[in-house]
Structures are given as structure tokens and as C-alpha cells.
């Protein structure tokens, strides 16, 4: 497999040459172009129940596309939002992604959905997180630029800006300054991370973009 991340930090996209038989799992709708020799299959991501729950509660896609073929071929992928594409090699390890941050992974990486708890549901940032576990290549994306933080101790991040983190970090969801400030300040809920590990944060936030646009729409 030959891979190239192009266009960062503004318009990141991923270009991959698959060897014969190699397979890549791809986020719904992310394929921009490909060799005609590649075939597409669909898979439930993280099992039927998790897929159903994601669809109902999270509004996320139910399936991932699996691209591959006996002759191999070229594949280009791009996220729905402009920003940065990230690549991490997993070596019998795990990374946790927020809904919407996943772009693609090789077949050695297993995807599992995890319910983020009722509080995550009400945060509006997607009630589910995605666990990418195994050995292989993982690609994810950020809206805007990305900041990689090495957390030692604790860090508070707005839920809409969290992209991914290592499982050595634990988190709790909190409102900044109590319910009243959460409702009136426009600052949503935050994720308070604890421990030691890497954390990826994006500089833009889709719910905030949509929230800004909404008052300008006319019914």
C-alpha cells in the first residue's frame, strides 16, 4: 500500500494505491475517485445494534464502504469538511474517535462503537464514539486545523472540538460554570480529560457553524 496525505492543512485528502487483495474501510461518502478495477462492498460498522443505535441517536452513517479488488488500484478519499487529514499507525493499540472524525482504516483495524452516555447524547455532539483497535493504518479528519496535545494531568476541551484521543486518557463531561452558563454562554459542554496520553483537537466545530447560520435562515 502506498499512501499520501495531500492538501493539509486547508484541504486535506488521502491518496492510496491498494495492492492486489488489499482492502480499505472507508467512511460513507468519502470516496472522490478510484480505479474502475476496485470493487465496493458495504459493512455494518461495529455490529447491527451499534449501527442502528448510531443511526437513531447519532444521525451518523450506518455503514462503511470496503474498497478493494484482485488487481488492486488507486483510491482518493476526502472528508466532508475542509481541514486536516491525519494518519496514525496502530500497533496492537487503540485510538478513540468522535463521530464524524473517522475517514478510513486498513482491514487489521477493527471499529467498535461505544455509547458515550446520556450526557453525551444531550451534548449534541454525537452520542457515540468510535474505538479503532488493532494493527494497521488509521486515517481521520479534523474540521479546520488540528492541534495535537500531549496531556499530562488534565485538559478541558469543548465537546465539538474533540477529534480523537488515546485510551490512556479518561474523561468526564461537564458544563463550564454550571447549567446557567452552559445555557447562556454558548459554550457547550466540555470534555474534561485526565491522565497521560495524546489528544487531537480541531479548531472549528460543525454544530457551532450550523448554530451561527440558523438565525439567518428564513422559514
Amino acid at each position, binding site marked *: 500500500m502506498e499512501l499520501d496525505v*495531500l*492538501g493539509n492543512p*486547508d*484541504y*486535506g*485528502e488521502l491518496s492510496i494505491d491498494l495492492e492486489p487483495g488489499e482492502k480499505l474501510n*472507508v*467512511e*460513507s*461518502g*468519502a*470516496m*472522490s*475517485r*478510484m*480505479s*474502475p478495477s*476496485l*470493487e*465496493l*462492498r*458495504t459493512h455494518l460498522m461495529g455490529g447491527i445494534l451499534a449501527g442502528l443505535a448510531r443511526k437513531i441517536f447519532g*444521525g451518523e*452513517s*450506518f*455503514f*462503511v*464502504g470496503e474498497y478493494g479488488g484482485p488487481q488492486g488500484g488507486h483510491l482518493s478519499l*476526502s*472528508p*466532508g*469538511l*475542509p481541514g486536516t487529514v491525519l494518519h496514525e499507525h496502530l500497533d496492537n493499540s487503540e485510538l478513540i474517535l468522535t463521530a*464524524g472524525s473517522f475517514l478510513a482504516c486498513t482491514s487489521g483495524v477493527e471499529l467498535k462503537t461505544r455509547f458515550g452516555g446520556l450526557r453525551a447524547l444531550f451534548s449534541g455532539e454525537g452520542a457515540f464514539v468510535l474505538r479503532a483497535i488493532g494493527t494497521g493504518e488509521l486515517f481521520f479528519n479534523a474540521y479546520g486545523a488540528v492541534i495535537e496535545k500531549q496531556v499530562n494531568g488534565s485538559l478541558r476541551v469543548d465537546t465539538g472540538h474533540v477529534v480523537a484521543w488515546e485510551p490512556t486518557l479518561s474523561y468526564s463531561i461537564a458544563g463550564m460554570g454550571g447549567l446557567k452558563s452552559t445555557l447562556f454562554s454558548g459554550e457547550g459542554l466540555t470534555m474534561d480529560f485526565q491522565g497521560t496520553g495524546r489528544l487531537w483537537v480541531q479548531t472549528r466545530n*460543525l*454544530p457551532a*457553524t*450550523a*448554530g451561527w*447560520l*440558523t438565525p439567518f*435562515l428564513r*422559514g
Partner: protein
Amino acid sequence: MDITLQPNGAFHSALVHLEPGDQFKSDSGAMFRASSNVDNDVTTISRGGGLLAGLKRMAGGDTFFLSTYQTTGGEGGEVGVAPTLQGHVAQVDVESSQSWLCAGGSFLGCDGHMDLTPRFQGMKGMFSGENLFFMEVSGAGPLLVGAYGSIREVPVDGELVVDTGHVVAFESSLSYTLSKTGGSWLTSYLAGEGFVLRFKGQGRLLVQSHNPREFGAMLGRRLPPRRG
């Protein structure tokens, strides 16, 4: 006519310098600045033809408003054009022997002496959002295209599959069919990939890194429902 591309960071635009007698045709929404002696004449191009048909289809996005700019008073002038979404701008020098097809949403403008022919695609209307419309640009001269994201040239020699939302423009020497990504419509739908264009032959193809429809769908899911 002289065109200067202005590649400022992630947000490109183009400045067209017109001499007396020059004409520049442009998507009506693309102009963001013009000299005071530049005159603008608006015409519509619609599927059914005619202005009334054009008005009826405005809501459906089927109508294309075309502005023709020229200078008055025997002096030169300038017109600045930019894409609606954030992204890059590119110039294609069209030769008289080879016309180009430009995706409706990517067309920024061209020399006023070039010919424009709308090409509405057959399967359009089957699924909402797949509003596939190409502008055929023929005659020698400059063509300006705008993108959502970056523009990349992908030479086609043989066959290539491209998501409809990523096509910017291509030489008419390429043949294309509108089809599905996977083996079945169900697979394509489940994988979130609606229509693709299967290109065949030899020719130049410009693609954009990002898909405006994908962005619209992601944003739309988070906006309040449309009333009425």
C-alpha cells in the same frame, strides 16, 4: 483580455482586465468587484429554454444566470470573480479543436467570444441533490473554474471513476457515463456514494478535493427543518 489569478491562501479569486471590445461571460453570482465603466447584461440559460421556463425553474436550481461584461467609454476596466465556497481557482486555455465540459457549479467565466451550450444529464431528477448539469465551452480562449477546496489535474488514459460532486471540468474527448459506485444501487446507497461518472478515453480532467453536496448534507442535518 488578460486574466490574473489571485491565489490568496485558501481563498482564490481571479481578476479579468478588459480592453474596449473585449467581453467576459460569467456566472452571475461570481462577480465581486468591477470598474464603474463595466456594463453587465444578464441572460438566462435554462433547460426548457426561454425566460418564463427559466423563472419557473429558479427554485430548482436548474436555471443558470449568465452575465456578459464589457467596458464602456472606450476605456479598459476590470472584473473580479470568485467561487461561492472557499477554494481554489484555475484557468484552462481552451483550444478551438477541443471543447471542455464544466460542471455547472464550477463554471466561473470565460471569454465572451466562446460558445456556451448547457448539457443537462439524463438521469437528473431521479434522486434529489444529484443536479448534474454541464456547461460545454467551445472556441479558443480562457475558461475560469472555481472549486470547493483545491483543484487537481488528473490525466485520464483508459478508465477512471469519479464521484459527481468532485468533477470540475474535462475535455470533451473523454466519454462518460453516469452510473453507480458499487455492484448494485443498494450497495452504492449504503456506502453513501450516489452517482459517479465513469470516464473513458484520453483527456484532461480537473477535480476538486471536496464535495459541496457532502458539505451541504452535513450542515443541513444540523439546521432546523424547512417550513412549508
